[in-house]
């Protein structure tokens, strides 16, 4: 079995020009963990999710490479966190989306797909080889559903 057979071919996507506030509300309301970001040609650009939001409300000095490892001396309120969020809420999501999540091709074998899902700990974009076109997304839920459905079919 290949990745193309277990992926969701019609994933919800965001545009890089969407504001951080808009995208944040969207993923919060629907309880998404992260969503792919694509341009007008459906070219995969990166992922935007709750981690990006966390980075906006915690001081920059914490998340940067070689940043503060110990922040136990900072005691902030929800207002402090919102203040930091409001400083960036009108900016496009392209400024904070992550491009570090590896994409896979539709021909990737199922076991390899599972391993990458396990290592990434987030949904994985399936991208057309040789181009950047997003073909679909694979999440824990997609795979879990497929496995459970197989069990139901065999028992029947």
């Amino acid at each position, binding site marked *: 079995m290949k990745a193309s057979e277990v992926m969701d071919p019609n994933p919800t996507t965001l545009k890089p020009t969407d504001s951080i506030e808009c995208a944040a509300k969207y993923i919060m309301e629907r309880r998404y963990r992260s969503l792919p970001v694509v341009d007008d040609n459906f070219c995969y650009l990166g992922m935007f999710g709750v981690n990006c939001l966390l980075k906006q409300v915690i001081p920059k*000095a914490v998340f*940067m*490479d070689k940043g*503060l490892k110990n922040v136990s*001396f900072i005691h902030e309120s929800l207002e402090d966190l919102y203040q930091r969020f409001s400083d960036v809420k009108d900016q496009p999501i392209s400024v904070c989306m992550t491009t570090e999540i590896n994409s896979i091709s539709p021909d990737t074998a199922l076991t390899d797909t599972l391993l990458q899902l396990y290592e990434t700990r987030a949904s994985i974009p399936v991208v057309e080889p040789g181009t950047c076109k997003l073909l679909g997304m694979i999440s824990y839920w997609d795979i879990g559903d497929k496995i459970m459905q197989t069990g139901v079919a065999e028992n029947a």
Partner: protein
Amino acid sequence: MHNLNQPDMILGLSPVWFAGTLFVVTYVLIVTERLNRAIISMMAAALMIVSGVLTQEAAVQGVDFNTIGLLTGMMIIVGITRDSGVFQYLAIRSAKVVKADPWGILVMLMLVTALLSALLDNVTTVLLIAPITLLITDTLKISAYPYLFAEIFASNIGGTATLIGDPPNIMIGSATGLGYNDFLFNLAPISILILLVSMVPIYLIWGRHLTADPKLINKVMQYREVDAIKDWVLLKKSMFVLTLVMVGFIVGHDYGLQPATVAMFGAALLLTLNCLPHDQEKQSKMVARSLCDVEWITIFFFIGLFILVYGVETTGILEALAHKVLGLTGGDKTITAISILFVSAVASTVVDNIPFVATMIPLIKNMAPSLGGAQELVPIWWSLALGSCLGGNGSLIGASANLIVAGFAERSGQPIRFLPFMMIAFPMMLLSVLISSLYVYFRYF
């Protein structure tokens, strides 16, 4: 020196030309930064041996293990101590002492950076201070640039003050037998003066304009520095060992203890105290983690460089160069010292000061017979130390710590650009070298 039995010709070149060419090519490659500097120096060292300029035994003898041991030992001690959170505590406490006033914070962070750079190495110091600086300036909603600029200066000036503050001093101390106290008594006073003088242009350019909203100042005042201490037991152990090591540096010289021995003993003692309460498996993990904190790139860069320079030295090039330099200065000790001070400052602005000092040490040693013996070289060693350490402030590439700070600035979205930095830093560096030259002249001649 070893009986080397060098071949008459190497790849169609005499050993002198081969070693000289290899040396120049290595320098160029280090400057271009196309390849990691540890790889370049290891390759150069290997070529020195493979070509027959040095035997393997001679190459090993060329390595200054006092420098290597001191660096490695201190890196292990600092790596373990860092986990206690004491350095963060110091930085936050210093900001609160001045009621989080923006200019006061800048002065305090400069002082803390200079002090830590004198006691630890510069890179470690800025790795500890720069993130806290960004946190404070972010909270106060003010530019981090003046702070990071000031910390670069403070780290290089502070590093000048002691034997262990900056690699050039470690190398000079090891090669000459000058001890921790010699460095402290001869270089610390002038370093303190230069640090204070450096605050004047920083104040005039940025300091007098620094202001912050009182509400934001209050936020900094709400930081609970005591909470930064993550492990009180580790803190006590670390402070105990660090104090022992400092005492060892100060009194050890009189008992024939080299700084490397003191640092390595301190590292072993702290590892023992830290690991003893744990089982064998945890101990192995803790030791592995501590050894990972050692900057092996720097260590191997040093090893390769020592072999390369030793190879060049054996061919007699540096001796000939020393005579040329003395010819240019007319054999006058004062002119030689002041010239070396300025040349090493300018050179350290554009090239890594480690290879520069590694080359200058044997070159200066070769001047001893013409200048009246090894004792007559002492002012020249101070000139080399001052020039090579302070020269690091001249440009963004002048010292490793500068690049580390620039990296933090880039990641925080407030980049430090090469030319704007140099426009202010180079004249300030020249001012510090001018003060140093007056100091050398009036104190030693």
